[in-house]
């Protein structure tokens, strides 16, 4: 028979093991903030390509249908995505090491597989939209699919990600009602929301 504090430790270790084996807890909040900053930079660059010199809140007379502008936009989106992903991997790896865990673990693999299903289907869907000339709903679609990916991912990491997911979906649906303002909503969803949520997560889990 063991002492009582030992039994309390047993209970605590059950909780730790359940969480550690099912959830990836090394996701860095700071990388969320940085991803938001990259997205805002991308949105500003996109604004100069698509809208300029029309003011951003003026009715968006889209010129995206020009293949050259479209290509540039896709390039910007790809750069933002790549930068966010590599920052996320780098900072999460650092955090994992600090926690004595590994970045590439059963839980991070599960997280990756689960979020890539909505992300890849959304990505392909958007490319098809662009290819077939349906430019207006590309930004809303990217927000909605990203939101679905986050909700899916919240099963395998911090549960709060779910609320970011809900916000992205709501924003995506609202933006679908306002064609021509895709860029503004995109900047809100991928820029501002990331910065806000990243800062909350950073305060709660990274400190």
């Amino acid at each position, binding site marked *: 028979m063991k002492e009582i504090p030992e039994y309390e*430790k047993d*209970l605590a*270790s059950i909780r730790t093991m*359940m969480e*550690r084996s099912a959830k990836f807890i090394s996701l860095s909040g700071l990388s969320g903030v940085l991803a938001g900053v990259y997205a805002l930079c991308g949105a500003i660059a996109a604004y100069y390509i698509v809208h300029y010199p029309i003011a951003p809140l003026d009715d968006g007379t889209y010129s995206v249908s020009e293949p050259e502008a479209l290509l540039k936009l896709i390039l910007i989106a790809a750069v933002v995505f790549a930068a966010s992903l590599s920052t996320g991997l780098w900072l999460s790896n650092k955090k994992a090491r600090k926690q004595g865990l590994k970045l590439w673990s059963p839980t991070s693999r599960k997280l990756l597989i689960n979020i890539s299903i909505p992300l890849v289907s959304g990505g392909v869907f958007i490319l098809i939209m662009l290819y077939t000339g349906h430019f207006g709903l590309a930004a809303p679609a990217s927000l909605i699919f990203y939101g679905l990916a986050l909700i899916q991912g919240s099963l395998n990491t911090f549960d709060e990600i779910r609320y970011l997911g809900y916000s992205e979906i709501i924003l995506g649906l609202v933006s679908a009602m306002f064609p021509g303002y895709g860029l503004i909503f995109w900047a809100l969803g991928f820029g501002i929301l990331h910065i806000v949520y990243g800062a909350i997560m950073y305060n709660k889990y990274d400190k």
Partner: protein
Amino acid sequence: MKNPFENLDKVLEHRTRLQIMSVLVTNDGYEFNSLKEVLSITDGNLASHIKALEREKYLSVSKSFVERKPNTKYKITERGRNAFKKHLDALEAVVKQQK
């Protein structure tokens, strides 16, 4: 009043075994190497505790080959799940009684 200590599971009193069961109760199947990573213990250590749990029929083993490498996966059995739950209740009762 009944003594809650009597309800504790002798096999699960060992913390590593309890941790293995905690992982299996939350996940639908877990591989040997993943289990080793999560618990951060050695091969031999893990294998011996798994043996003990297997003997009690608390978990089931399935072996297969993934890319020609042997892959061993563990699943909790119904018996194991019940034992885990009973032990957890007993742990809570023991700790509560003391307060």
